[in-house]
């Protein structure tokens, strides 16, 4: 187990920059999730840590030791691949013991490690099978077993659950989380699935276009997204983005949206009156109530029932927004509802650069 330090790590293929100087300090035993859309550089960063991609410039250190020029095998890390990358001609036990054998670990130690790992992952009965004879979830477990038998300094996961169906993914997610709790090993996990990121991470690193957008705890990213990208990427259904103009009225800020409606904000913002902004509001923070309760009157355009609640498609000021409501009685096509916004729940972003703005004072 060890801390991982990444200092202005850059990756370029010829003239194409895929990673523009990443700085990241990962603590000992921390579970960090790199999340972002495909092509954002998250896998490249992981592969640079693993030693499968060269580091164009910058420095990566594992456990205080610079690893830029070390072979993957000398970095003492283990990696779980999206395709599992199990050796098809070896049995489960052979797959798991391969790295130990190469390191000339004594036979008894190998046997003990395999038994322990197989027990932990529920693979006891399968150690003599070949990967071909296993289900997707079992293969996934073998891939994890192969990583844990070595007790490496860090675990790297490259979209390990992408090839599983939804139910199995949920189950494996929990197992990974439990495993991390048991082993307490430093882990870096790459995914494009924001739910996986939210549920697993101690800290999330949101990336886009080769640039780190925000680093923080899952709830941090959810409650205080640093910019429009993070705001739109984290959370499902996605946050509503409403273009507006910032106005100062009686010392407090309001957002003037299409049709001249004014939404009061939580305070005054350090920008001049008339600045173009984007108001972000999560569907679950759009309060929908029966008509006559006060607020903006609007019609329900479409309902998506999820069972737990309903996603209502509304257009209170001409612009389509989504609201999430637990009250099923409101979820009828064509019904009229009243919509209100809690000023404290409105996120304000500068339209110019997409950066988050916080009220002064």
């Amino acid at each position: 187990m060890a801390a991982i330090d990444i200092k202005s790590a850059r990756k370029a293929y010829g003239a194409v920059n895929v990673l523009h100087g990443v700085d990241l300090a990962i603590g000992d035993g921390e579970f960090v999730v790199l999340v972002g859309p495909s092509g954002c550089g998250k896998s490249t960063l992981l592969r640079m840590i693993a030693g499968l991609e060269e580091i164009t410039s910058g420095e990566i250190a594992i456990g205080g030791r610079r690893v830029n020029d070390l072979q993957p095998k000398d970095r003492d890390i283990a990696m779980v691949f999206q395709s599992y990358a199990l050796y098809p001609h070896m049995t489960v036990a052979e797959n798991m013991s391969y790295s130990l054998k190469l390191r000339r670990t004594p036979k008894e130690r190998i046997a003990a490690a395999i038994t322990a790992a197989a027990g932990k992952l529920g693979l006891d009965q399968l150690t003599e099978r070949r990967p071909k004879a296993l289900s997707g979830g079992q293969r996934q477990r073998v891939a994890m077993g192969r990583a844990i038998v070595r007790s490496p300094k860090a675990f790297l996961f490259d979209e390990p659950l992408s090839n599983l169906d939804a139910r199995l993914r949920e189950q494996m997610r929990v197992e990974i989380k439990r495993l991390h709790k048991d082993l307490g090993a430093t882990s870096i996990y790459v995914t494009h699935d924001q739910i996986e990121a939210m549920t697993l991470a101690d800290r999330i690193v949101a990336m886009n276009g080769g640039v780190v957008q925000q680093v923080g705890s899952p709830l941090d990213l959810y409650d205080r997204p640093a910019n429009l990208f993070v705001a739109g990427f984290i959370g499902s259904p996605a946050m509503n983005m409403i273009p507006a103009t910032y106005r100062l009225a009686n010392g407090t800020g309001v957002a003037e949206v299409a049709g001249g409606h004014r939404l009061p904000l939580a305070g005054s913002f350090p920008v001049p009156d008339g600045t173009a902004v984007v108001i972000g509001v999560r569907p679950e923070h759009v309060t929908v109530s029966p008509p006559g309760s006060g607020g903006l009157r609007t019609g329900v355009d479409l309902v998506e029932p999820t069972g737990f609640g309903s996603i209502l498609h509304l257009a209170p000021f001409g612009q389509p927004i989504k609201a999430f409501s637990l009250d099923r009685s409101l979820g009828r096509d064509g019904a009229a509802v009243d919509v209100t916004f809690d000023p404290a729940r409105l996120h304000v972003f500068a339209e110019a650069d997409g950066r988050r703005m916080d009220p002064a004072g």
Partner: protein
Amino acid sequence: MTAFVASRRRPFLQRLADASEPWLYTAPALILIVAVMLVPLVLGVSYAFRDIKLLNPFGGGFVGLKHFEALATDQAFRTALVNTLWWTGASVLIQFVFGLILALLLNQPFRGRAIAQALCFLPWAVPSFLTGLDWAWLFNPVIGPLPHWFVALGLMETPQSILSDPDLAMWGPIAANVWWGIPFFAITLLAALQAIPKDLYEAAAIDGAGPIERFRSITLPFLAPTIAITILLRTVWISNFADLIVVMTNGGPADRTQIVASYIFTTAFRRLDFGYASAIALVLLVLLLAYSMLIVLLRQSLLKRG
């Protein structure tokens, strides 16, 4: 029920048409196979038991196992059999080793790889007779460079053709055959190499396997079924492959390069004894069949393991 009764009462011609329908559909293919493959095969096999000499137009009678009895004591045949083993074994082995090395090199990313791949596969497109002539000339001390290079390297005292040296003659056709056959192994092995998932190598690199260990524990197991089938194909092919020998040495000097295939060729088309030639061919066929069965079984067990 009525349908059943009706069908039993159908006229004979109708029933015949129904029964022969599938056969009629397959007839074109069946006729072609019988005419092109089975008839010549049966005819060829029957020659082995008949006295067919072009110089004796009144022959052609059934002679039973006479040809095979003659074969059993034929010293030239025995020499040819040993030469065939030698020729086939050395050719296949060297072709395979160089083909594998070439495939591994071509599987690496480098600039101009597409052109290099195309160039490496070029020898395969050269007609075998032309290859034989080329190499015969290369080994010729008057017009070819090779003997002079051998002298310069100290391998030879005076420039002379290895094709006329009884101890070395076989290496002439083998060299030509290797040059000509490397692309076959390179193409098939390269295709198999490209089918190996890259992340297996990455996983192995992280697990601590060096290049040699990765080759041993990933590349070889993945290539094994392809290696088995290509070696089988090439072995059968090369042991039947008389072109280069006929062109370069014609079996000489003193039968030192005579293989069974070229012996059959000589017996049939020089001595015009088709009956005896067919008998030799039949023995070769049986030997190759036995060998093929062995390799197919080996490949099955490899695939089952994989």
